[in-house]
């Protein structure tokens, strides 16, 4: 079982997975785009602007989930000194930052027709912006601090502090009076979104998760090659 985690075995699996995702990705993307832009109905109140939800909501979920995963991995990596976790953190941070930024930008665009403004400093929007800043700090630490041990230590501390922001983002719409609407989809509790909109939303989420997996695998593979390249110089 542990053999699986050796870099050479992981490398084989990464290559297979990249090929598999590449083979199904564009078909799934076309199907999800058709549902999001054509087949799903307009909202009774927001009209067709609700279609922005199909890129905004999955991007937010991915941004939040990536940071939670990154922060937990950072803490575990700091305690147990697991080398693979460091590679995972370095590979996942840019993906999380990109989707957090997409979420902020598409949310802003959605805000114009629904709230009448692109930006307000309300709790949800501000806490999402803070999340993007945490991502930027962690990426900058790994890029500009060459001592890996030191970089990991600092990024673990920053990630742990950033983890506090995750429940703040999640519950900001309930704790404070915000322009942002409360969550319509709940893991525990009643989902208030109709199935004709929920299905395309979940489909788009699945496609974007596949995209994340593809990018993550390519970045992880790059990191493995980078380490092997370093080792080659020691010969």
């Amino acid at each position, binding site marked *: 079982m542990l053999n699986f985690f050796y870099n050479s075995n992981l490398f084989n699996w990464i290559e297979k997975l990249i090929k598999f995702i590449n083979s199904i990705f564009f078909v799934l993307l076309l199907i999800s785009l058709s549902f999001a832009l054509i087949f799903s109905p307009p909202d009774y109140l927001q009209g067709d602007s609700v279609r922005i939800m199909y890129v905004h909501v999955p*991007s937010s979920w991915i941004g939040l989930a990536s940071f939670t995963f990154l922060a937990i991995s950072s803490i575990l990596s700091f305690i147990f000194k697991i080398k693979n976790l460091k590679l995972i953190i370095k590979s996942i941070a840019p993906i999380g930052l990109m989707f957090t930024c*997409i979420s902020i*930008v598409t949310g802003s665009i*959605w805000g114009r027709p629904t709230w009448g403004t692109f930006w307000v400093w309300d709790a949800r929007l501000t806490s999402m912006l803070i999340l993007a800043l945490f991502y930027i700090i962690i990426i900058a630490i790994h890029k500009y601090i060459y001592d890996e041990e030191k970089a990991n230590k600092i990024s673990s501390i920053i990630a742990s502090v950033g983890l506090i922001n995750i429940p703040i983002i999640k519950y900001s719409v309930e704790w404070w009076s915000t322009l942002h609407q409360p969550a319509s989809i709940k893991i525990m509790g009643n989902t208030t979104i109709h199935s004709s909109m929920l299905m395309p939303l979940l489909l788009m989420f699945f496609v974007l998760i596949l*995209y994340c997996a593809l990018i993550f695998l390519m*970045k992880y593979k790059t990191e493995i090659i980078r380490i092997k390249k370093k080792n080659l110089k020691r*010969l």
Partner: protein
Amino acid sequence: MIKNLILMNGYGIFVWSSFLITFLVCGAFYYKTRRTLKKYEKDFAKEIKELSAEKKKLALENSEIASKVLSSFNKTI
């Protein structure tokens, strides 16, 4: 129907710009990640090729990844 799809009852500019930004950013990020990976593979394969015969043998015997990258690089050229 196509006109409706483009205009989306006046919301077209917001909807299309959101989708366009999302997929352009994702596309650019994919391209950049793939290019970096290919560059690393190419550099790594080049470095193995430039090693002396003895060191090259040692590297390929000790690292399955090294031989894989070298063989996939040889296929592409």
